[in-house]
């Protein structure tokens, strides 16, 4: 179980012959992810770690009928790769690529919505349903199966908190990164709804950061929809100055919009506990689950 991917997920890797694509294909295979094909234009007919490579997604799909894709294609060509996957009927697409222009991302998201497909990312570490499948670049050993759902806008901060949960014997149902860009395929509310319906997930950790208002909207949703599962939040960027981009394209306070204070306040008003330090996330969660 878990959400979006599980042991039945059959994936292709777009950009499989590049350094990152090839390296992470190996790690995903070792984790047990079913990678059935790879695509790199011009490299059709070769193999990477035993996975057949095709020139086009169309050919790969004719032979393998995958239901997911993970994309490592460089930014200037990435939106084209996503459209290629969408056009060929793939419904779950994880875009690892960072630095995709906003205009390209908006165009791709419109099309994805039109064909009812789900895009995780861009600029995401990906998604992992521990012990079942991993479509991403996260270090697998820090995760273990369990009942905590985790959604985040960051990569390494997610690892920090996931490793701490695992150390404290709190396994995870599914962990995923929405992506660090301003325009992403999914938002917190989308994921809260999915975790809400997933029987394996008993509690949710939401890791936000400065920029935009997706956290505020999530807080409002949790409160108005009377969300059925306990939620703990963490917000990075309390010390970030306005007008400066903090690493992620999406992590920027514009004027008074998108500050950590407004997000934290929104969660507190919705009755959601907000951790002040990464290690406090697990502590708060333990308290919530045990009471």
């Amino acid at each position, binding site marked *: 179980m878990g959400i979006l991917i599980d042991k039945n997920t059959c994936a292709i890797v777009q950009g499989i012959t590049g350094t*990152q694509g090839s390296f992470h294909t190996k790690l995903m295979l070792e984790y047990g992810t079913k990678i059935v094909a790879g695509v790199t234009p011009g490299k059709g007919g070769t193999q990477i770690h035993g996975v057949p490579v095709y020139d086009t997604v169309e050919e790969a799909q004719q032979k393998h009928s995958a239901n997911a894709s993970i994309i490592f294609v460089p*930014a*200037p060509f990435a939106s084209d790769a996503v459209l290629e996957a969408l056009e060929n009927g793939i419904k779950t697409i994880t875009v690892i690529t960072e*630095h*995709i*222009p*906003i*205009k390209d*991302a*908006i*165009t791709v998201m*419109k099309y994805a*919505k039109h064909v009812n497909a789900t895009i995780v990312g861009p600029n995401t*570490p990906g998604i992992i349903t521990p012990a079942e499948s991993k479509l991403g*670049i996260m*270090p697998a050993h820090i995760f273990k199966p369990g009942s905590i759902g985790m959604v*985040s*806008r*960051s*990569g*390494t*901060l*997610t*690892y*920090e908190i996931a*490793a701490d949960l695992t150390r404290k014997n709190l396994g995870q149902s599914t962990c995923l990164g929405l992506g*660090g860009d*301003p*325009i*992403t*395929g999914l*938002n917190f509310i989308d994921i809260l709804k999915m975790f809400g319906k997933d029987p394996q997930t008993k509690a949710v950790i939401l890791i936000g*950061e*400065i920029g935009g*208002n*997706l956290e505020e*909207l999530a807080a409002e949703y949790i409160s108005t929809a009377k969300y059925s599962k306990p939620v703990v939040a*963490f917000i*990075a*960027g*309390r*010390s*970030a*100055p306005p*007008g*400066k*981009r*903090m*690493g*992620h*394209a*999406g*992590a920027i306070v514009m*004027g008074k*919009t998108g500050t*950590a204070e407004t997000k934290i306040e929104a969660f507190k008003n919705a009755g959601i506990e907000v951790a*002040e*330090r*990464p*290690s406090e996330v697990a502590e708060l969660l333990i308290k919530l689950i045990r009471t």
Partner: protein
Amino acid sequence: MKLFEYEAKDILAKYGIPTPQGGLATTASQVREIATRLKPPFAVKAQVLIAGRGKAGGILFVDTITEAEKATKKLLNMQIRGIPVKSVLIEEKIRIKKELYFGITTDRFNQSYVAIASAVGGMEIEEIAAETPERVIKILVNPEHGLHPFQTRQIAKKMGYAGSQISELGRILEGLYRAGMDYDAELIEMNPLAETVEGKFVAVDARIIIDDNALFRHQEYKKRLFEGEGELTPPELEAMKNDLAYVKLDGNIGVIGNGAGLVMATLDTIQYYDGKPANFLDVGGGAPSEKIATALRIVLSDPNVRALFINILGGITRCDDVARGIIEARTKIGGTKPMVIRLVGTNEEEGKQILRQAGIHILESMEEAAQRVVEIAGHGGGK
């Protein structure tokens, strides 16, 4: 990347949007030359990439050419919030009847562009939205279809216009949208877009921010940025050229880490323990040792830094590469500041081994490391 007002206005003019008559100058004599072709009175505007330039005295209105020269000299000798003024825009002063706002930016939740308009202009749009939200008009724009004429007419009508002014305003709004798309603007705005006493519309001020991730499609501006003519300080520019994300802050604890969220959380944790971070620096994923060394050099170029906190959680970043980078930087820079290092993840043991041999101590918990570095930086009245 922020564009200067004159660059933004040049772009708008290409799309048929009326802007005031004028020209760019770097000396008072150039201003005289331009002014002789213009009708007084004039506006002399400092070209700096800072919001609130007018309030800081960066815009002067004058009646004669001689006064314009004087105003130019004054502005060119001025610093606006520490940024020296290198050029001015001299323009005919517009006789304004009403100030409007029109801009296009992104809407994250709706994964869309959004056109925002208001019949109350001249101040920051978010202030307008806070004070008179009912007067802010928003329309989501689908990039496949663009901003339709009927949408711009709707906007003009809602702003209270009638007759030929509807199509005149509509044409300007469409032009702004096309300019925004062609230049990959994450924000493009006319603020104010003035209605003149003659009933015409003129973009009196304009702002464009190009999406940094799309700069590869706009080499002319990228070149200007990389030549150091922009909002970036020399260390910020060096970081950008080396694909590092660096933001200077005003504390005394230098910070280096991998991953934007982790580094932000590191700064927050330092602050939680009453320390003050000197910077944000994210080396990104999979940084090789040279990149770590460059990062160290950039952080240590800040004279306020008393101690350094390196926080690495290795996923695709390898701890041994990080360790080698630290040693490399230390050898090159010579005696560096005290360092607190937290290093876990891929090739952790190899990394620790390298640092231990060099006599550098490593901690495993980020929070423990943060407390330690705050203690060190605090010694000697650093806080």
